[in-house]
């Protein structure tokens, strides 16, 4: 099974990836997970940097030994695979646009197929509900603002994007887009420089920007409560010319 790599986010030192597979005459989004960790209590083991570094989004990869995973809503896209193999090819411009467009919510449909709840700044969904954990939202580039702060002792700053979500108004979402963050880091060590870079980079994408939104795995603070799946900004793409 071939997958076009679409979402590439950071989860600590590992990566979390998702992509599109062409199945039954339509694009289907999947989140490949390593079968080796199938018996683990939670599906939060990401992919190693050794395997992925040097590659880019929109590359085509073979999913080896795919097996359906028991859906754990909202993460219904999970798919067990034995390994990944890059094909050395990338998706065409038309395929990229089609994948982004296909994953937009339909008119009247909620982003993740279920109600979201808000906190003062963010949005989350309870585990066990929802029809998907990944979606695309079209946003005017000049309405996206980046902010950030560095918790001393952490390896990297917490960068957030301020976006307007349908029904929920302006929300501040953690930015997990690995490629954009990596380029921002190359812009300089200072957080201000990185924010300036991110702002300029997104403005260069033109209008509208296709923002990939993803729900995190449940953050469980107390064992007697179900946890919260936070909405995160997983990727920022130019819709006209979806870049790697």
């Amino acid at each position, binding site marked *: 099974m071939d997958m076009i790599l679409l979402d590439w986010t950071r989860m600590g030192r590992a990566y979390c990836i998702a992509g599109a597979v062409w199945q039954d005459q339509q694009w289907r989004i999947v989140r490949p997970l390593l079968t080796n960790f199938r018996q683990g209590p939670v599906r939060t083991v990401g992919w190693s940097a050794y395997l992925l570094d040097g590659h880019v989004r929109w590359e085509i990869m073979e999913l080896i030994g795919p097996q359906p995973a028991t859906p754990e809503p909202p993460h219904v896209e999970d798919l067990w695979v034995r390994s990944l193999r890059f094909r050395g090819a990338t998706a065409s411009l038309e395929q990229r646009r089609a994948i982004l467009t296909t994953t937009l919510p339909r008119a009247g449909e909620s982003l993740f197929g279920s109600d979201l*709840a808000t906190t003062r700044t963010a949005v989350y969904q309870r585990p066990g509900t929802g029809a998907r954990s990944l979606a695309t939202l079209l946003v005017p580039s000049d309405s996206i603002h980046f902010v950030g702060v560095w918790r001393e002792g952490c390896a990297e700053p917490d960068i957030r994007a301020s976006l307007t979500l349908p029904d929920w108004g302006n929300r501040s979402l953690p930015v997990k887009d690995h490629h954009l963050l990596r380029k921002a880091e190359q812009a300089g060590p200072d957080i201000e420089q990185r924010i300036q870079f991110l702002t300029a980079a997104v403005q260069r994408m033109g209008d509208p920007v296709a923002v990939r939104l993803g729900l995190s795995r449940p953050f469980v603070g107390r064992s007697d409560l179900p946890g919260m799946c936070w909405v995160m900004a997983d990727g920022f793409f130019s819709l006209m010319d979806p870049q790697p």
Partner: protein
Amino acid sequence: MTYTIQDAIAHLLCRLNEVLQRLEKSTSSVEDPNKPLADLLDSMAMVEWLAVVAEDHRISLAAIEECLGRRIGTIAEMAAQLHSAGWVPNSTNNPRRAPSLVAPVPPASVRPCWLVRTSVQLPDSIESAASINAKLQRPAGWLERHAGIHQRRIWADQDSLAAASQAGSACLEQARWPTEKVGALLVTSEAPPLLTGMAANLNHRLRLEPHAPAIEIGGACTGFLAAFRIAQGLLDQVGSVLVIAVEAATRYLHVQPGPAGEDAALFGDGAAACLLCRDPQGVDAVPVGPVVLGADGSSAGLLQAELLQNGVEFRMRRFELASRAVEAMARSVRELAGRHGLSISDLDAIVVHGGNGRLPGLLARKLGLPPERIWSATPQTGNLGSASLPVAWAAHPLPKGRSIWTAVGAGLMWGAVMLGNPDA
């Protein structure tokens, strides 16, 4: 009193513990201000906490991050930075002493819904201010001048529960919404005509399905907003909720010479119903945003009810109560509008609970709005308690743009909700 770094530390710790609890992070309290915040907060909790602190200081989240140099170490360090910048929170040492007048967090798990129809049943009997002044042994024009009330509606011999039922029936008929599709009935009242089983009684009178939950909601004069809030939580399960407010204050409060009788003279009777649906129904349906509610029990003494042998007496600290009420509603409106990125002038109307007939004018002045933008029926009906908001709303043509309903009630409780599309 001087605001010290220790005060700042106490404030930050208090807010931190509130946020950790709200985000279900911990049940134990953080007390060490020198512990690295990276060990205490993940990125989601940190931004929530910073947003709370920013709001307390009446500044933006971005401004507080800039003040801290975009680096956060410990609470002690942060308190020193904020203190040296001269920033003092709205509420000093203990934030609980002076809570924000709007619930700090928008209600979770609540999606906007639609107000499909509103219907009102006012009593047939009208008692003029002249008649009330005579009962109070006050000179002509006294009630009008002191309370801005020109007349009030009273049930007299009318069956108030039947009137409430008529309000509900009319609401459903006008909405073309069959009774079997009503998913739940919420009934609110500050002065109920029936002390027990009122919701069940109305469920029966309206011939709603027996399995449709019939629930009574308190909340005094904010009861209608409280009912809206509960309805928004129910709508995903039940699809539609009929909210009824019925007030029979004149049954309990006796107009007679003296302060208690003068307070009683402020209140009138009435009933109103609103149909709320998850999805828009009909061309007149108006979107309803999340309801914000707040409470400050330390101010309960401003308005108390005392049970007597022949009824109930209200004890009001009138001027203080009016001042707090106007302040709370003005702030609720400003904060709610601001939360939607709107200014006060963007609102077509502010539908206000009129504790007395002068409050709407005072609120207009406080907000810098012309009086006609503040909707209240109190001068013509008396204080209708929980029914005052829908009665005022129904007395005007539907606004094309945005409006805010706001109320303050005994407790002290307050609340607000935006109607209309904030992005329109």
